[in-house]
């Protein structure tokens, strides 16, 4: 009796051991796969930091580009990036959220909205250069907005619009139906439900999506080159009401500009290695801008979600 049990136990243990070998094997494989990604990125980042950090002085942030690598800076590039991002956000956030709310809450579910839905998801996958070409035709030539901050902001806004719509719809969908029913049962109209419940409770997810979309947009180069951003800008866009004659409040929107990725691209393509250092330093700054935006997204999500549960 005891012999029979023990032999059965042994078979069982042998089987578990052999199963666990696969467990261990997959663990190692997974670790290796993860390391390929992490180590490559770490190496790139370290390389960039070693090359670039010596150039990161205060002057680097407050100087315009220059023929002499040692005096060149990223003033026009980071100001351009920030201004373009502001236009992008002002365009894409309200339009994207409103579109998502309409599709999710107001639109009747039929083949037409299905087609729209599929196409919005597809738009998120369209190569960014295509948006650049569209913007060149539409904003620059048809609307005559020129190769300006406004054009760049609208272009990047269009580019991230699908991302904003998709993430907003997902955050709205995550709100349980019984919360909606509770609000409707109080006598709320559809707009009251959207304003008082869906948007506030969806905000953490929406904000995260918006910031991640913006951090994608800030690194975009192709569409900005296509619409004709300049690579050498030694002035800032006009500050509203300053200068002589005073600039109008919206003149900066129509100013020529450059952005961080274009400045980096420009410096990388020069033969003098001193410019490559500048490129590394500027890349370092751009990576930090992106990481910073992602950090804000994570922090906001944590802060705002604390009090939202079902």
């Amino acid at each position: 009796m005891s012999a029979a049990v023990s032999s059965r136990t042994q078979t069982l243990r042998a089987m578990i051991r052999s199963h666990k070998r696969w467990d261990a094997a997959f663990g190692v494989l997974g670790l290796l796969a993860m390391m390929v990604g992490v180590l490559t990125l770490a190496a790139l980042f370290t390389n960039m930091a070693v090359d670039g950090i010596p150039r990161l002085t205060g002057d680097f942030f407050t100087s315009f580009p220059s023929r002499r690598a040692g005096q060149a800076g990223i003033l026009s590039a980071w100001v351009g990036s920030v201004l373009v991002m502001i236009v992008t956000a002002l365009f894409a956030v309200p339009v994207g959220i409103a579109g998502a709310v309409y599709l999710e809450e107001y639109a009747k579910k039929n083949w037409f909205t299905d087609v729209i839905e599929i196409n919005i998801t597809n738009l998120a996958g369209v190569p960014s250069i295509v948006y650049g070409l569209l913007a060149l035709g539409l904003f620059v030539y048809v609307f005559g907005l020129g190769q300006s901050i406004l054009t760049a902001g609208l272009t990047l806004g269009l580019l991230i619009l699908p991302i904003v719509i998709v993430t907003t719809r997902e955050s709205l969908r995550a709100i349980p139906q019984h919360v909606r029913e509770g609000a409707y049962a109080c006598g709320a109209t559809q707009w009251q439900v959207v304003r008082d419940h869906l948007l506030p409770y969806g905000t953490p997810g929406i904000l995260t999506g918006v910031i991640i979309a913006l951090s994608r947009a800030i690194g975009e180069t192709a569409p900005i080159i296509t619409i004709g951003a300049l690579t050498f800008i030694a002035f800032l866009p006009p500050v509203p009401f300053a200068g002589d004659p005073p600039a109008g409040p919206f003149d900066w929107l129509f100013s020529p500009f450059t952005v961080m990725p274009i400045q980096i691209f420009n410096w990388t393509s020069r033969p003098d290695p001193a410019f490559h250092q500048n490129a590394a330093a500027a890349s370092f700054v751009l990576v930090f801008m992106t990481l910073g935006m992602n950090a804000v997204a994570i922090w906001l999500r944590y802060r705002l979600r604390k009090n939202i549960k079902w």
Partner: protein
Amino acid sequence: MTATLTLPERPPTLKAESKNLDFYYGSFRALKSVTMPVYEHKVTALIGPSGCGKSTYLRCYNRMHDLYPGNRYEGSIDLHPDQVNVLHPSVDPIEVRMRVSMVFQKPNPFPKSIFENVVYGLRVRGEKSRSFLEDKVESALKDAALWDEVKDRLDEVAVNLSGGQQQRLCIARSLATDPEILLFDEPTSALDPIATGSIEELISAIKNQVTILIVTHNMQQAARVSDFVAYMYLGELIEFGETREIFMKPKRRETEDYITGRFG
């Protein structure tokens, strides 16, 4: 409780009645010609096995079915005394929900403060006066037997309350708007026995302010809280009567089988 001291009760007044009410989910007929009265300031319990249409029937009273496509009503539910048919297409479902409030199966407080939860129905009605809202919060929470537990933390988030407290908060949210009818859709099925007891006491306590229609799976609960019982089966109303009668001497064999546990 001596028999000689029992005064004859006033006959109940009619608050609402459904007439030949049919309801369709798409092509599925979930309610079959349900005709039934609802008496003012009484508790009417809807009982029956799962899928018999009792929740479907309840959700007709505040037009909750309008939120989803493909649903269709036939027949009428008249609110008395003004004889408004709440199902008529010309009657706005918002107006119906302003008059007929609802407490759901799963407590569904909003992830807002306790205060904001109670006043939400009033905010929707455009009420802005802070002192009025504060008075309403106090009286509604007192009516819902929750005031003593939360009066010092009205600004705290409602979702941190226990399940039973959340459900009483949802009742306060409904009471704050002085509804004519309050619908309860299995309000205690997600709660423990103690929380269930407090909700049942509450239902008996508030019926002098509001007419109550309650769906329940629990026959003891129906016996404890209700004045009238409707037994439904497969979308039909099998029997309606005073609770005592339904439980002591039901007229229909099906009702008797169900309440004695031989069926269901």
